């Protein structure tokens, strides 16, 4: 069955050689509740990065 999330990709074109996000992935990217969790995670990650970078 064709996926409504993946448009036609020309075989052997450069675009054919990579991954294409499907419905679940796209939904999670814009799901506000999940993104609030990710927002906290990104901030923690960046804080650790900053702490590790200062000498």
């Amino acid at each position, binding site marked *: 069955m064709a996926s409504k999330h993946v*448009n036609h*990709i020309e075989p052997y074109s*450069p*675009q054919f*050689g*990579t*991954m*294409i*996000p499907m419905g679940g992935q796209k939904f*999670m*990217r*814009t799901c*506000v509740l*999940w*993104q*609030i969790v*990710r*927002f906290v*995670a*990104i*901030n923690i*990650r*960046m*804080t*650790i*990065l*900053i702490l*590790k*970078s*200062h*000498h």
Partner: protein
Amino acid sequence: MARLVVMGGGVSGHTAATFARDMLGEDHEVVVVTPNSQWNWIPSNIWVGVGGMTKEEVVFPLAPVYEKAGIDYRQAKAVSIHPEGKEDAETPYITIEYTDEAKSGETEELTYDYLINATGPKLNFGATPGLGEGTNLGEHTVSVCTADHAEHANHELEACIEKMRNGERQAFLIGTGHGMCTCQGAAFEYIFNIEHTLKEQGVRDMADITFITNESFLGDFGMGGIHFKMGGFATSSKVFAESLYAERGMDWILGAHVNKVEAGKVTYESLDGEMDEQEFDFAMLIPPFAGVGLKAFTKDGTDITDTIFAPNGFMKVDANYNAGAYENWKASDWPRTLQNPSYKNVFAVGIAFAPPHIISKPMSSPNGTPINPTPPRTGMPSAMMGKAVALSVVDMMKGKSTEPTHTASMSEMGAACVASAGKGLFSGTAAAMTVYPIIPDFEKYPGTGRDLNGTTGELGLAAHWVKHILHHIFIWKAKLKPGWTLIPE
């Protein structure tokens, strides 16, 4: 009383000057020499370039901020450095040329005890015929490197959108305008904003969008590519970046040295040596960067520019400039204190310091044309270098040490990069990437050269919110508003 002179009031220079001023107290002087009257949060120029923000939202006047902080601000450009002073006076000095309306063209000698070079890049449009003349953007393409450029880019974009509404197909070409460019991240972010804007305007189906880059693979970013911890895999930035383009139906041209720009057309040489052409109706091509062209002289007037600066015009610091071939490169080649080896009271931070070599693997076409990204020195590392050098200089000025006390090596620090498309809080989307360390270290991290716990990439609204917050907190910090010292770089 000692005097610190900071040349350049951009991301790294402003950070260095404001922290030094904050820590030095009344006993010492801090002077900033910079030709711009306004400070620009450059990352948000991308939004100005698609009409998501106005120029006024990304700039603010420097004079009141420096006045409040007690920083002596000279709206001028530095022209030359005289680190030994002159025959009859040993005090080192720089020469400056004023750029403000009242004193425009006037020159002055400014003595210093410590000097920080934070002059950033010369936007070298003139390196590619047709891309521009010297540092001036030409007539065929647009740029987002300055707020004014970005405003102009948005006007051109609006004109293209109007044409598409009237049924005229438009070709967009975004990327690098020379084989030795850096700053692919800015072009990467801009192309996603263009695509997002065209979709919002309902004309996406009338546009062909192509990315042209000097990278040998998408996602090299001038850092030799990155492996992110993603979905249980150490995923290459190649797959990550290609996926973003493929999802949006955008094409890409790799390993390209744009060697000529004409009205509606670029000519480029590929890594395989082929010459090709690409037509466009709208093109945003990043220029190559060089040092701003400062000169240096001994006390008897001998030109020592070649001793203090690398051939590309960036200032030499404590890096290993004799690392040799790619196979011999090490993370430890990268500078730590950013002190000039010839003159210990001179430092260079941000884009102004000369890297020991590039980070990506050097490549050239069969014709011998080098086509590889040069090293990025993005906002976060630039500001960290500014702060570290300020702390070292403060300790030296206060007599606590004769050597730099702080380090900021790109091989020991990370970078966070958020590329965001659109401005709406719920309609935008973004890629958030963290990289640690910036310079791959295969001795410390034998797998991918980087710490996979600190090297991540993800897409979504959350990253977009982070980008919004960064815009506001960095402008808050640069304006020295309450709590500014607590905001990290």
